């Protein structure tokens, strides 16, 4: 069970360490059910830390998001560690970043938080609209306890569970330096109802489904920026020479953007759901990514972000990879 005391103590000790730059955790947001990442540098800040069903953000994104500023001549680059709180899914992002050398093992200190599934923000805001003051939410047995201003409410877990959590198979961090509390039992079975449902439709219906979505994309690239696996210094999709896609917003460029991004995530997407969560236009991006997650898992017997020693999927092959599609 969540042990906030322990979390705070660990956090205090961690940020007091000389070799730690800061600790990234979650804190209550400015209103309603929102949370915000907390970059903690002082032990006093520990009181702001929370771990609750609201902590949906995958903080691993920040490991690769930090801009590397030019280091003035003579100065030494800051190589202190970043401490990071992770849920199961988040930890897979860290592992995958390690696999592809996006970060170095010595540069992170992973604080594992076994997780019982987080809330779907949209659903909970719809169920309890118009709440201004920050709301505290806790896990109960198979339910969420929502401490509204006018008293606690209990909601069955399935009703409000985030989409990514409905089928989670790795609620426990797969890698950590400190594990904060006991592991929980996984509940997912790895089947994706949304993907399946779409697969069963005919080609025409699938296209109209996606056309509708891709057309409404505003190409803000929030999905890419929030993705812990999209961290190229200079994304090919932004590049001018060669210019793979134009910046104009239309079905052609938008579709190619999404297909290219989805493809770049083959064997890398760890299903943290951040892209879909942050999309202001509500595109069901996980329904796209999970298709490939599923293919890679079922047909190529590979899952990313589990073993830091493993070979990246995209730079490996097996002589007996499927080839029934080849003429």
């Amino acid at each position, binding site marked *: 069970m969540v042990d906030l005391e322990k979390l705070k103590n660990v956090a205090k000790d961690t940020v007091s360490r000389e070799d730690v730059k800061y600790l990234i955790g979650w804190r209550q947001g400015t209103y309603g059910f929102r949370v915000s990442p907390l970059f903690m540098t002082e032990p006093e800040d520990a009181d702001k830390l929370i771990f609750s069903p609201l902590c949906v953000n995958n903080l691993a994104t920040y490991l690769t998001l930090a801009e590397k500023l030019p280091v003035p001549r003579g100065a030494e680059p800051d190589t202190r560690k970043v401490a990071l709180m992770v849920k199961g899914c988040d930890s897979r992002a860290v592992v995958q970043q390690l696999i592809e050398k996006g970060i170095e093992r010595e540069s992170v200190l992973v604080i594992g938080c076994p997780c019982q599934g987080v809330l779907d923000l949209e659903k909970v805001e719809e169920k309890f609209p118009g709440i201004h003051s920050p709301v505290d939410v806790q896990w109960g047995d198979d339910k969420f306890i929502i401490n509204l201003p006018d008293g606690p409410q209990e909601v069955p877990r399935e009703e409000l569970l985030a989409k990514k959590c409905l089928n989670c198979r790795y609620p426990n961090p797969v890698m950590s330096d400190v594990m904060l509390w006991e592991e929980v039992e996984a509940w997912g079975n790895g089947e994706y109802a949304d993907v399946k449902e779409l697969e069963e439709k005919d080609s025409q219906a699938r296209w109209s489904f996606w056309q509708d979505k891709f057309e409404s994309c505003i190409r803000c690239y929030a999905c890419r920026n929030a993705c812990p696996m999209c961290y190229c210094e200079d994304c*090919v999709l932004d590049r001018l020479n060669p210019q793979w896609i134009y910046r104009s917003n239309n079905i052609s460029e938008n*579709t190619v953007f999404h297909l*290219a991004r989805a493809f770049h995530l083959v064997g890398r997407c760890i299903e943290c759901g951040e892209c879909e969560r942050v999309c202001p236009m509500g595109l069901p991006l996980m329904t796209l990514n999970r298709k490939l997650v599923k*293919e890679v898992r079922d047909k190529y017997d590979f899952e990313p972000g589990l073993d830091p020693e493993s070979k990246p999927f995209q730079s490996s092959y097996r002589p007996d990879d499927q080839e029934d599609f080849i*003429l």
Partner: protein
Amino acid sequence: MSEQYDPNIVAFLCNWCSYAGADLAGTSRTHYPANINIIRVMCSGRVNPLFIINALQQGADGVLVSGCHPGDCHYMEGNFYARRRFGLMKELLEYVGVDPKRFNMSWVSASEGSKWKDVVEDVVEKAKEAGPFEQFRRNKINW
């Protein structure tokens, strides 16, 4: 689809097997449809999967990637990478509703001039069935 429709296919061929196989088809004067337009690369492993989407975007009605049979790659492993990449690219395209007939991959060796002809005929036939590609073709309609 109208009778007139003549599909336009962009093909990426590896230099050592498939391109040579297509050359052999030529030296043997094997006739096949003219809808196929070949881009030569050194190895099927060179074919960036984004080329496929790009070709569709830029007006191709069908795409073909062809390389050496497994184990015969001039560079030993290139076609294995290609196979993995395109297997998944095909799944992806199919999933978003692109007709799978538009995207094909083949193994054609330097000695398989007649197989090359068969592949071309097959691919052209399939593209004809699929009809002109419009779904995310980049054209002025979108401007």
